[in-house]
């Protein structure tokens, strides 16, 4: 578990506007999950019709054993 000294995390927590941006993103993910019938429309977690679904070959952000 990262310690609180993580400078990047500290910057992010102190960043004005980030919480609002994230709230909007989570609403987008909820809407997407609801319309596509996948994912978790309650939690706002991205569902399976996501970029992992679209690009399993491009491991830029997808080196994720499922």
């Amino acid at each position, binding site marked *: 578990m990262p310690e609180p000294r993580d400078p990047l995390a500290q910057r992010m927590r102190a960043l004005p506007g980030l919480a*609002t941006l*994230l709230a909007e993103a989570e609403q*987008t993910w909820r809407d997407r999950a609801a319309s596509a019938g996948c994912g978790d429309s309650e939690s706002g977690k991205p569902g399976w019709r996501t970029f992992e679904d679209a690009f399993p*070959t491009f*491991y830029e952000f997808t080196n994720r054993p499922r």
Partner: protein
Amino acid sequence: MYWGGSVSQAWTGMRGINDVPSYVIMQPTTLCNLDCSYCYLPLRAHDRRMPVEVAQAVAEAVNVWAGDAPRFSVVWHGGEPLAAGREHLAALMEPFRGVEHHIQTNATLIDDAWCEFFAERDIHIGLSIDGTRELTSQRVLRGGAEAYDRILRGIDTLKRHGLEFAALCVVSDPRPGLAEQLYGFFVELGATVLGVNVEEQEGVNLRSNAHSDDAVRAFWAELTGAWRRDPRVEVREVEWALRYAGATLSGDPDALLPRRHDPIPTIAQDGRVVLLSPELAGFSSPKYGDFASGSVLQTPLARIVADAAAGPTGWIAEYLTGVESCRSVCPYFGFCGGAHAANRFFEQGRFDGTQTQHCRNSKISLLEGVLDHARAA
């Protein structure tokens, strides 16, 4: 640069290699009918097709893995996979059971018959286009003519058949003023998902990928703003950065990285298996050899993967050392999981270095650009 000194946090993900992949990458042919100026593939002018025996050997392992997993993907890459022809590609796909097939295509060969082929097999389609005609001008036919009209014709055919597609876009010159136009293009095009690859210096593409950090950050910040205003298209990079930011604010960013590396077996046309980094397939070096961990024609794929996971050797062991170096010094490790193997090799000539230009363009500047947008909005 954005980092300095050691990092105090103890990231726990990406330690070692998983002994089961979640997908495999198949090269049905080395041939591509295009000759894009930034392509990294060395044998794209040659039509060396994968024998069916190779696919059968791969399927022996994959069908077991797929039976034990909720999803398992077989990704047909290339070369241009459609250049293998429908009959041969069908024969290569036939041995697989319980998997989802993906094709990454340049779209120029897509016609009604291919669309029927995709629909019959429920194939996930990713295609490559870099934006407007001007922005896609590096995607050319052999002989140098633009491929743009053929790409659009293929996309129109997909749409006519009601087939969804994701798009991969190479950006050679990330800069302010570009992302807004780019995002609008992909909304109009009707892509479901957009992946943005800042051009990489790898393989036979020796062009430098060094850019001004400020320009690249501004590009990502602008893309974040465009997506935020109209989030119809999933944008892989921006949304991944937001997932990381969300995990950080909720106090558990360490949970985002996988515990171990997915081995990502890439099966070259001749059956050789390259793990972890598809871009290394087809290359060799005096120091590291051909980067292959074996051939499915000689050793079962499951054993090749299990052996590499249990006792990594050669370049893979060196790469894992490099990942540990990233873990110890880079504050962005929790976001990125360590510089990719191919970028290390093609930029630095070794696998145990740390920050690459690709890290700066596509990880560090990406995250900082998304944060810049949040700060300015």
